[in-house]
């Protein structure tokens, strides 16, 4: 029996109709394509009246297949599948031709655009004719969620889910949760004490009955898919037994070593070889750093073990691999600071009184290495003049093209702290002042009032080569003051570099592990930049906080909560329906060669020793097609991407590729050559 196909061409306002002659495409499809019984163009197919039109036509014209030529299937495939379903047609008997992103948005040539639209419609019509009805596959959602990263975004996400009654694993690679926010002294623009607002959340997360806290641990491996991921976690040896340790800190006190703390104190302070990174750490269980421990490096000492009142030190502890099944994963892995030594003209690492923003944060913190005093590298001299340099490694195509977003506000906060704690003058060297969130511009106004000085110009260099008596023994900031157009040299005692926020070193590795993508800079890519900012292209994997791009604390908290809400929604549905676009193996053709077993990137093929054949585990298969292409016996077929469907689609796309067809369409031979789009 012949199929009865309906073709609908969308104008998308002028998005499509401005370039493509949509009426002509619809007329042509109705007159020339086999089995097409209805062909219409319409202003907005995705509107409710557009959907209704499809539903009514299915009923009135007994349509058996539907093609919509409109935008990307990413946007509206679901909409039109639903319309088909409402009218009693299996939703997989539908096909979408993308004539917006693939045509009208990428060319200004109206003639070529209309001809390509015909090709894509012809391809969709030939393909849909061979579509087979499919049913989505149900997958149970494991209510447990893995949150990777224990900064403020991850803590927020974990607490939201735990408070909703769902179990959470909160994973953190450092010895304590808290992230960068735990290092800060104050937060802009309200100047709340960072620790005072963060630590209650940390201890709540640490004690919550629904949260399993795994610190000093990292994600090793992920398999499975939404609803039932299997994760392997490496719990690194602390050499301290968590079940016995009371957090009394005697081991730390007695340890005879001193090590520069490059992580929490940003290199400005020291810690012991066995240490708790900061007073409010959660959990309050020390970690032994074997690289610097005297016992581990020289074989003798064990003072910590001797003094421990609960016998909690275990020098033989090994890394553990823990395995869990989780329904969803939230990535909240944060950021790292730009390495300021990469810009040699700013002198970091060479000129002692040039500091990074993180060093300055620790210096301002009352619990930090200087007890909250703003002093030069000698540890005692108060500066008379401080320079704050913006955009160090940001807004610079030689390093990072993007604006880090938070540094202007952080610089204002530093300006306030210097003015509050010292008698020094403060200069800010900025390119553009960016203070575009609630209360931020007001904070800028406040600093103008407090007397912070602003020079509009990107600093050329920081030098100790003096040219005058006034410059002797000081640092000189050389800059063009772009508001006066003059070059200035300003002698200062301390320079603070507002380094860029960069993705974590291993962000790309993590993205690969969980199967999501990154921007070229290394930030995780969200599903849609505006309408789906915390989901990713992989179902069941969400992102929150700075791992998705630089952002401030309120935005990180909002994303943490948003990601948790999305996960809670999936959990409360209990079952998710996944696309039936999976591979299946015809066991009568399978020779049991096992080539597909190792090629499958999702470990979704198992081998049945007894029968000597391979089988696809449907719930794990993502329908990527690797096995289908590799099978030497052609025993594997892919639902919805079967060979006959793909070949029919190609034939449709190339309907006009014969010389006669080209001549009929475009007339003279010479003109054909210019139509690169169609002649490729």
């Amino acid at each position: 029996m012949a199929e009865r196909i309906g073709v609908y061409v969308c104008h998308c306002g002028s998005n499509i109709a401005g370039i493509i002659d949509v009426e002509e495409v619809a007329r042509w499809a109705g007159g020339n394509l086999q089995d097409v019984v209805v062909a219409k163009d319409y202003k907005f197919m995705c509107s409710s009246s557009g959907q209704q039109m499809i539903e009514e036509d299915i009923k009135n014209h007994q349509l058996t297949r539907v093609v919509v030529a409109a935008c990307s299937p990413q946007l509206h495939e679901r909409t039109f599948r639903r319309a088909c379903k409402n009218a009693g047609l299996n939703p997989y008997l539908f096909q979408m031709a993308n004539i917006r992103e693939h045509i009208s948005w990428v060319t200004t040539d109206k003639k070529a655009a209309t001809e390509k639209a015909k090709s894509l419609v012809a391809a969709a019509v030939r393909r849909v004719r061979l579509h087979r009805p499919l049913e989505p596959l149900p997958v149970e959602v494991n209510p447990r969620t893995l949150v990777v990263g224990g900064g403020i975004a991850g803590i927020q996400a974990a607490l939201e889910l735990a408070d909703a009654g769902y179990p959470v694993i909160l994973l953190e690679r450092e010895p304590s949760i808290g992230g960068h926010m735990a290092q800060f002294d104050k937060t802009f623009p309200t100047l709340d004490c960072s620790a005072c607002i963060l630590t209650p959340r940390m201890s709540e997360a640490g004690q919550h009955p629904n949260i399993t806290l795994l610190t000093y641990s990292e994600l090793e491996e992920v398999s499975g898919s939404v609803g039932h991921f299997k994760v392997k976690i490496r719990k690194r040896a602390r050499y301290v037994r968590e079940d016995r340790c009371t957090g009394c800190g005697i081991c730390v006190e007695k340890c005879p070593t001193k090590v520069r703390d490059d992580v929490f104190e940003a290199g400005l302070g020291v810690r012991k070889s066995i240490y708790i990174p900061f007073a409010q750490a959660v959990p309050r269980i020390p970690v032994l750093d074997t690289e610097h421990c005297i016992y581990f490096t020289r074989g003798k000492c064990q003072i910590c073990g001797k003094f421990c009142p609960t016998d909690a030190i275990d020098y033989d502890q090994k890394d553990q691999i823990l395995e869990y099944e989780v329904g969803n994963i939230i990535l909240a892995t944060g950021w790292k600071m730009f390495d300021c030594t990469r810009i040699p003209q700013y002198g970091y690492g060479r000129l002692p009184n040039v500091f990074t923003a993180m060093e300055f944060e620790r210096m301002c913190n009352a619990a930090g290495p200087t007890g909250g005093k703003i002093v030069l590298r000698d540890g005692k001299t108060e500066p008379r003049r401080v320079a704050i340099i913006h955009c160090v490694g940001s807004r610079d195509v030689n390093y990072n093209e993007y604006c880090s977003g938070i540094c202007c506000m952080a610089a204002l906060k530093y300006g306030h702290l210097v003015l509050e704690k010292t008698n020094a003058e403060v200069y800010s060297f900025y390119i553009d002042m960016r203070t575009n969130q609630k209360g931020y511009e007001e904070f800028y106004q406040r600093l103008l009032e407090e007397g912070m000085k602003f020079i509009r110009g990107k600093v050329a260099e920081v030098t100790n080569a003096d040219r005058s008596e006034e410059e002797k023994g000081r640092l000189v900031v050389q800059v063009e003051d772009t508001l006066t157009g003059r070059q200035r040299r300003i002698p200062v005692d301390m320079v603070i570099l507002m380094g860029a926020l960069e993705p974590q070193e291993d962000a790309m590795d993590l993205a690969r592990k969980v199967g999501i993508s990154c921007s070229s800079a290394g930030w995780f890519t969200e599903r849609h930049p505006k309408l789906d900012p915390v989901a990713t292209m992989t179902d069941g994997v969400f992102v929150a906080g700075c791992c998705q791009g630089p952002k401030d604390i309120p935005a990180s908290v909002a994303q943490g909560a948003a990601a948790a809400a999305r996960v809670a929604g999936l959990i409360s549905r209990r079952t998710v329906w996944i696309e039936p676009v999976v591979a299946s193996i015809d066991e009568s053709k399978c020779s049991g060669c096992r080539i597909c077993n190792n090629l499958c990137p999702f470990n979704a093929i198992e081998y049945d020793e007894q029968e000597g054949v391979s089988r696809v585990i449907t719930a794990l298969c993502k329908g990527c097609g690797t096995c289908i292409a590799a099978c030497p016996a052609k025993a594997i077929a892919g639902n919805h991407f079967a060979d006959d469907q793909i070949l029919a689609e190609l034939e449709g796309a190339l309907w006009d590729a014969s010389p006669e067809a080209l001549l009929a369409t475009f007339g003279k031979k010479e003109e054909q050559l210019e139509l690169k789009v169609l002649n490729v």
Partner: protein
Amino acid sequence: MVHAAIRGETSFLNEVIEETPHGERLLHCIQCGSCGGSCPNGPDMDYSPRAIFGMIQAGERERVLSANTQWMCVSCYYCTTRCPQQIPITDILYTLKRMSVRAGLAKGTDAPALAKSFVHYVDNYGRAFELGLATRFYLLNKPLAMVKMGPLGLKMLAHGRMSFLPTRIKNLKQLQAIIQKARELGEKS
């Protein structure tokens, strides 16, 4: 290719871009001033390169081509290496030098005359000849000022820093062919 931002205009901006390799980066200038701040001659310039770029965008042809900025440039390339937008600043200043000479606006500077004398020796000997360069430049341009340079010249001669006679490089013909080709290409653009 004409950039969309300057489409349909035969503007000063367009001319500068067309005459400079990667000149279109000029459109990316964010007026940060890292060029003017870095320039060792910055304090002596009428306008910093940043300000010049602003004027080019505003179409102030006369003011730009009469400025001393391009003649103050010593080609140290500090500005170019530090520019956060990878604008070929030094090269743009060379473009402005050429345009300034062509427009007859290079006044109050010895640089074009000095450059001509310099090129004369490179054309004929394949390398610079200091004694000849100074003599030729001063005789043609400001003979009276030559007297002042006398003591310095003698000192250089005494220390073997300057020779009496010019030396020709080997295979001068080959260099001349290269220079000839460069000139042809230059005229074409």
